[in-house]
C-alpha cells in the first residue's frame, strides 16, 4: 500500500506544476452527480455508491454515500483455552463526503481529493451485537481520467478504517462517476 501511495505522489509531483486549469469539464449549471466505486485490500473488498451535486465550475462535489461488503467476511477470535470462534460478518457504512477535481492543464487527466465522514457497523451472523462500529473518516486521493463529456474514471489511494483490527485500512480505490445537468 505504501508503494501505491508513492506512485500517486510521484504522478502528482510530475503533473502538479503544469499550468493546471481549474477543471477539464466544461462549466455549466449545478449538476446531479452519481458514482459507483470499489475499494480493495489484499484480504477484503467493498463496493459503494455516491449521489450528490456538482458545482457549476465542475471542481467541487458534495455527496452522500453508501458502502457495503458484497460478501460476508470470516473473522476468527480467540476465546481462550485453545477455543476459537469463527464468525461471518456483513459490513455497511453510510455518510457524506466532498470531492475536489483539478485538471492537469490540457488533456483528459487530473487529480482528485476526497474527504468522507460516515458511520460504519457490522452484523455478525448469530451474534446480536458486537463492538466493531463507530464514526469513521475516509480520506482519498488519486488520479482521474475524463472518459466522456460528463464521465470520469478515478483510481487512487484511500484510507478506509472499518473499525476492524483484522483488516488493513489502506486500500486501492476505483470509481466510475458521472454528472448530468437538469434540462
Amino acid at each position, binding site marked *: 500500500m505504501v508503494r501505491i501511495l508513492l506512485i500517486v505522489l510521484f504522478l502528482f509531483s510530475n503533473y502538479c506544476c503544469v499550468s493546471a486549469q481549474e477543471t477539464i469539464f466544461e462549466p455549466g449549471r449545478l449538476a446531479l452527480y452519481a458514482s459507483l466505486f470499489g475499494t480493495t485490500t489484499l484480504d477484503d473488498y467493498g463496493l459503494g455508491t455516491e449521489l450528490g451535486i456538482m458545482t457549476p465550475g465542475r471542481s467541487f462535489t458534495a455527496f452522500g454515500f453508501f458502502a457495503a461488503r458484497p460478501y*460476508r467476511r*470470516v473473522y*476468527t477470535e480467540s476465546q481462550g483455552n*485453545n*477455543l*476459537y*470462534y*469463527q*464468525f*461471518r460478518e456483513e459490513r455497511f457504512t453510510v455518510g457524506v463526503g466532498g470531492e475536489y477535481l483539478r485538471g492537469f492543464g490540457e488533456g483528459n487527466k487530473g487529480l482528485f481529493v476526497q474527504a468522507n465522514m460516515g458511520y460504519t457497523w457490522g452484523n*455478525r*451472523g*448469530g*451474534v*446480536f451485537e458486537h463492538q466493531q462500529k463507530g464514526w469513521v473518516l475516509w480520506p482519498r486521493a488519486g488520479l482521474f481520467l475524463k472518459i466522456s463529456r460528463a464521465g470520469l474514471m478515478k483510481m487512487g489511494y484511500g484510507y478506509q478504517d472499518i473499525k476492524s483490527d483484522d483488516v488493513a485500512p489502506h486500500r486501492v480505490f476505483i470509481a466510475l462517476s458521472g454528472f448530468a445537468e437538469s434540462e
Partner: protein
Amino acid sequence: MKKLLSIWTVGVLIAGCDCLCTDREFGDIKLKLTINEQNTTVDVLIMEGYLDDRDTLEQDVVAREKVRYKEFIPDTYYTGVATYQKNGRTVKVIDGRFMDLKENEDCDCYRAENITLNLRLKE
C-alpha cells in the same frame, strides 16, 4: 376438454387471480459444513435466537457437507454452531439468519422462507 378450459378461464377472469398458492407454515434450515481428515463428523447445534440465548432446538452429529433440518417456525432468528478440530485447536463456527415469513398479497397466503447457514471452517 374445451368446456373445462372455458370454465377455468372464466373462473380466473372472475376471481382475478390464477395462482395456486398454499400456506407454508414452516421453513427448512440448511447447514453447509466442512468434512475433512480431522473432522470426519461434526457436532452441530441449531438454536433459536442468538448465540448468547443458548436456546438449543437441535443437536446432531453430521458426516455430510450439506444437511437439511425441517419444520422451523418462521419470523424467528436462528443460529447454527458447528464444532471442529483444527491443528489441536477447537473452532466453533457460528452463523445466524432470520427466517422470514413472506406474504403473497395477490394470493393471500404466507410462505415460510428456507434459510442456509454457512458453518464451513475457513481453511
